[in-house]
């Protein structure tokens, strides 16, 4: 009964939404023919600050304050996830045998995991520090870095992963990354330009040392995002592997 009511309500709502969406699309200019007043101004501003990657210029320079909020959302979500998935004392005391992860993985997968681990970390670092020149940046590179670490889990097992991430290191990195972003913002205040202003010398467009504070902010974000992903995925792995599964099937 309840399910039917939900379906009925959802169907009516989606139908109305679809009708309105068709009307709205009809009134929109066709894709590719839209003028981009903000886009062209953003590109001009990116050239003013010698940032080759205009998207990063928007994210970290022109809208740096919004990205601070975004970064703090990520921090809050990571903290919330770690808190929600902490091991309760009752679960920690239950000393049942548990698995340490992939035992029946193909040898080829293991080999590729070992080979790709350093490559992935290198690519992740490259994406972070070249964020102001080429596609990428702290968010993208941080995710690549974190996934590189989990190749160790695929290639070996949970204990190898544990050795790669000493307790406390990633907690600290997570906090330090978020702190560094704010600190770089405050440095703009101290320099007399304003919070999160791109006050460092801009250099020449396309040069590795260009774009002022943008590469520094990218590194801060890369550290924060990488640490956040490592922490969150590690908590999910903890739940899957270490916490005994005595959940009753039916409620």
């Amino acid at each position: 009964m309840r399910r039917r009511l939900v379906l009925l309500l959802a169907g009516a709502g989606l139908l109305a939404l679809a009708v309105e969406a068709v009307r709205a699309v009809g009134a929109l200019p066709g894709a590719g023919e839209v003028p981009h007043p903000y886009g062209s101004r953003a590109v001009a501003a990116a050239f003013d600050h010698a940032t080759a990657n205009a998207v990063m210029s928007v994210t970290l320079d022109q809208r740096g304050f919004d990205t601070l909020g975004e970064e703090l959302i990520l921090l809050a979500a990571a903290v919330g996830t770690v808190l929600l998935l902490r091991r309760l004392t009752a679960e920690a005391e239950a000393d049942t045998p548990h698995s340490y992860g992939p035992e029946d993985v193909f040898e080829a997968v293991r080999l590729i995991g070992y080979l790709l681990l350093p490559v992935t970390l290198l690519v992740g670092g490259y994406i972070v520090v070249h964020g102001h020149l080429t596609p990428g940046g702290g968010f993208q590179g941080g995710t690549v870095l974190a996934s590189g670490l989990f190749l160790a889990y695929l290639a070996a097992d949970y204990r190898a992963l544990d050795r790669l991430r000493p307790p406390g290191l990633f907690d600290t990195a997570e906090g330090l990354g978020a702190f560094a972003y704010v600190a770089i913002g405050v440095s703009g205040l101290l320099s007399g330009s304003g919070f999160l202003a791109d006050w460092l010398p801009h250099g020449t467009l396309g040069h590795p040392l260009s774009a002022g504070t943008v590469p520094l902010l990218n590194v801060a974000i890369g550290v924060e995002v990488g640490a956040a992903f490592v922490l969150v995925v590690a908590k999910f792995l903890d739940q899957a592997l270490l916490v005994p599964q005595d959940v009753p099937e039916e409620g």
Partner: protein
Amino acid sequence: MLSWLPYAVAGWIFLVGAYGLATSRHLVHTVVCLNVVQSSTYLLLLALGWTRDGTAPIFADIGRKRAVADPVVQAMTLTDIVVGAAVTALLLALTIQVAKRRGNLDPHRLRSLEQESEE
């Protein structure tokens, strides 16, 4: 020609995801459906920023006069993706807690937080 197609695809993805949300019988499936709904906004934003004959707004190796896609909406899409990842992580963590406490992940059999689910 077919200049409305990206918008139509975005709308379609939104509707498919919303249908999945309404008919979901497993909370993990619900979270994935929410991701599908959200990915329609990525497509809508990127379609709005697309410029005919434009290239990526990366000026390391192209001239300033070159037509490029709108970097503002691309930066918004980046924000969208990051927030989506954060929301997904939190929702999946909550899902694990629901599974532990209630042993049941069918949203239709979960009532209030403390009340036992009915058979």
